């Protein structure tokens, strides 16, 4: 269990992180979102023990990171935005070095090399590796000592779509053994990888919960539905225009004897819309709630909180 309580960080007199508190359960993958300059990296660096907060507390499995940093920070795996690799070293040699630096034997190196898909380059010089392999190597060094918490700062940055998919699978696999905190600008990846989301804005935590909870918070799932309505198009149009429960609607497609429309609802459930349609004599062939992408939710949240 990771617990951050009232984390605050000042650079000179400028407050970059303000009173951030959250908990992360064991083997949970948590996504960390925020615009550039929101303070994500600062929080991640504080959690990894590399940066000391101005105030607040960080507990890892009940141990206070700040009162005994030397004894705890080596048990945290950290991948900074730029992987901390020595260009002149061989991959295998580097991972041995990273493991031993944290006081571990090199017995996990083979396992980690396999997990991160580095087998084919294990005898290669790091300076010759592609960006994708460097990111993997960065993750490998972060987990080679079997840490309780793995902190990944923008691990997907600069990867191509194939590499992104591989990285997503890799991060998901990490959950079997570690608690993972990952930040990314690619929100679909966070959406597909993480159990929970933390959103930081201007140094403050503005959301802590699942993507569904974020949808509920933004009142999005109840707001929009896509329906196929059968009947006279002009009658449907008039009915929707005059309805008190429809905030807005938009014709998406003309079908044979029916139309597909996207309907925005005013504080009512989709079931209530179904009753309304039937009572109004409109045939309801299908109804699908619009699942709003995390990206849209995030942008709305940023707009709401701003």
């Amino acid at each position: 269990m990771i617990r951050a309580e009232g984390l605050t960080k000042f650079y000179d007199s400028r407050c970059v992180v303000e009173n951030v508190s959250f908990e992360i359960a064991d083997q949970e993958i948590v996504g960390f979102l925020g615009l550039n300059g929101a303070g994500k990296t600062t929080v991640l660096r504080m959690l990894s023990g590399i940066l000391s907060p101005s105030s607040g507390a960080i507990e890892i499995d009940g141990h206070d990171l700040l009162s005994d940093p030397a004894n705890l920070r080596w048990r945290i795996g950290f991948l900074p935005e730029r992987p901390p690799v020595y260009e002149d070293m061989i991959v295998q040699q580097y991972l041995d070095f990273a493991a031993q630096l944290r006081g571990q034997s090199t017995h996990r190196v083979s396992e980690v090399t396999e997990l991160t898909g580095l087998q084919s380059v294990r005898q290669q010089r790091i300076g010759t590796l592609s960006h994708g392999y460097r990111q993997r190597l960065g993750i490998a060094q972060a987990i080679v000592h079997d840490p309780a918490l793995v902190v990944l700062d923008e691990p997907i940055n600069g990867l191509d779509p194939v590499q992104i998919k591989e990285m997503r699978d890799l991060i998901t696999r990490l959950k079997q053994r570690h608690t993972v905190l990952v930040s990314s600008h690619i929100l679909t990846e966070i959406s597909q990888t993480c159990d929970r989301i933390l959103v930081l804005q201007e140094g403050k935590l503005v959301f802590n919960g699942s993507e569904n909870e974020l949808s509920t918070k933004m009142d999005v799932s109840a707001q929009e539905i896509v329906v196929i309505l059968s009947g006279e198009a002009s009658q449907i149009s008039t009915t929707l225009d005059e309805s008190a429960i429809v905030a807005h609607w938009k014709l998406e497609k003309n079908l044979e004897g029916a139309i597909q429309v996207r309907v925005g609802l005013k504080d009512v459930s989709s079931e209530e819309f179904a009753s309304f349609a039937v009572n109004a004599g409109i045939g309801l062939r299908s109804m699908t709630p619009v699942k709003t992408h995390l990206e849209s939710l995030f942008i709305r949240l940023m707009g709401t909180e701003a």
Partner: protein
Amino acid sequence: MITDSNQRPSASKAMFLIVRRELSSYFGSWGGWTLIALSLMIAGILFNTRAVGSSAKFSADVLAQFFHDTSGVVLAVAFLVSLRTTVEERKQGTLPLLLNSSLTEGEIVVSKFLGAMTVIALFCLLSGYIPALVFLRGKVSLGHIGTGYLGLLLYASSIVAIGVWASAIASGWVVAGAVAGATLALGHTFWLLARRIDGELGNVVAYLALHDKHFMSFKQGILSLKHVAFYLSITLVFLILARSGLESRRWSS
């Protein structure tokens, strides 16, 4: 799961790894070897032209002059080698790996210091053929040679500590070079300054001169504990400052 039984691993192995890493970064490319080769060449030229010279000399004087001239070479090598310690890690983005290790800032600083000192020790070892020649052809004691090299190593340790400190507090090569260069320039000109200052303060300033009085006895083969203590004190002070510099980075960036 973190438990109390998982105590911090022994630092010595991790420190050894950093020292080894430092050495492989020096000697993994031509840079380190070129520096050593050039330094040896300069030490050899200075020995032939200044220490031996063209006039007849006592071998003890030749040896003293050798240690005096070689201290200048050691100054340059120690300066160059120590500057890269933390600055290079920062440039490569590898500092988080060290800061996220089982080592404290103090242990990281000491590891870097030992890595740089090993390079100096290697230079001293390779330059040993010169005093060996004096020993075989002339009349000097092994004690004189040993004391001279002890002086070189102690002098180098103070330079390296200053370089490690500058490297720990600076954001790049240029700043580190300027900070270390200014500190060393000041430390080497205190004796000049002391001449202009009367009284006790003048004595204090003269005492702080890095090379002048303190190295004199070593090059003449006289082992004086007060000079040993001086160099060790300077080394310790700057290593503590370097540790503080590295620690302060946890608060500032």
